[in-house]
């Protein structure tokens, strides 16, 4: 069982990694060309591109992409919007077409505070397995039957139990470790 569990999880990781690699080859040249045109550096291109791929993935999972365009065109659109978010004041003018204007960047994407960074580091030490499970359920939006398969649970019921155990564990940890604990009671 243990071996099966690891194999399925490893296989799933591999599949996701391959999908990202394909997108990398297709879309990075476009984004890099755009960034170089804006006088950005190679590092800028890499950073913007990685953020754009993550947001693209989230939009695909949420089925939020309703227009029919090639993936790399859409990713370039996200990258242009990200460029505007980051360098609005300092670096020039980007003209967006209709498709690109309709692309939104998740509100919380750049709002990572110190507190969350600190909490996440603590959680990664003590509860990595739970974070992986919760990621699969809430972020990758894997259905419970798929979760059973990937993580090697007996059935949907035991996966559900594990989900609640993990939510409870993380929630308790957040409560215990929050600096702003007092504020929460206000």
């Amino acid at each position, binding site marked *: 069982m243990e071996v099966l569990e690891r194999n399925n999880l490893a296989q799933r990781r591999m599949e*996701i*990694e391959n999908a*990202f*690699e394909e997108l*990398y*080859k297709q879309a*990075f*040249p476009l984004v*890099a*060309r755009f960034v*170089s045109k804006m006088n950005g*550096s*190679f590092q800028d*291109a*890499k950073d913007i591109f*990685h953020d754009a*791929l*993550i947001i693209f*993935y989230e939009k695909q999972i949420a089925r939020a992409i309703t227009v029919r365009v090639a993936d790399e065109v859409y990713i370039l659109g996200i990258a242009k919007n990200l460029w505007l978010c980051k360098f609005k004041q300092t670096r020039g003018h980007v003209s967006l077409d209709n498709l690109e204007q309709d692309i939104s960047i998740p509100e*919380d994407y750049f709002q*990572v505070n110190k507190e*969350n960074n600190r*909490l*996440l580091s603590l*959680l*990664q030490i003590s509860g990595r397995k739970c*974070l992986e499970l*919760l*990621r699969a359920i*809430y*972020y*990758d939006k894997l259905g419970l039957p798929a979760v059973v398969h990937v993580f090697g649970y007996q059935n949907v019921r035991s996966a559900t139990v594990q989900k*609640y155990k993990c*939510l*409870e564990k*993380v*929630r308790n940890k*957040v*409560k215990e470790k*929050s600096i702003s604990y007092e504020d*929460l*009671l206000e």
Partner: protein
Amino acid sequence: MKTSWNNIKTIERYLAGKLETAEALLFKARLLTDPVLRQQVTLQEKTYALVRLFARREIKSQLDRTHRKLSNHPEKKAFQQSILQLFSKP
């Protein structure tokens, strides 16, 4: 199911806007009078936000690995050149 899990499940449905009308009214009334429940809602929102942050970080480090792989692989020379020449200033 444990009581605490019912609590988590209800809060999850509340945050996702999935409570039935009557349930939602009742829940909001409880929120007004129950500071512990209010705190639990806040903590749970934070939990989901941390899971999202975790996932984004994980993907980012995976993309860094892909980036290194494509930058170092001898068979990908043409790809590397085409990108790098965009940034070579005359």
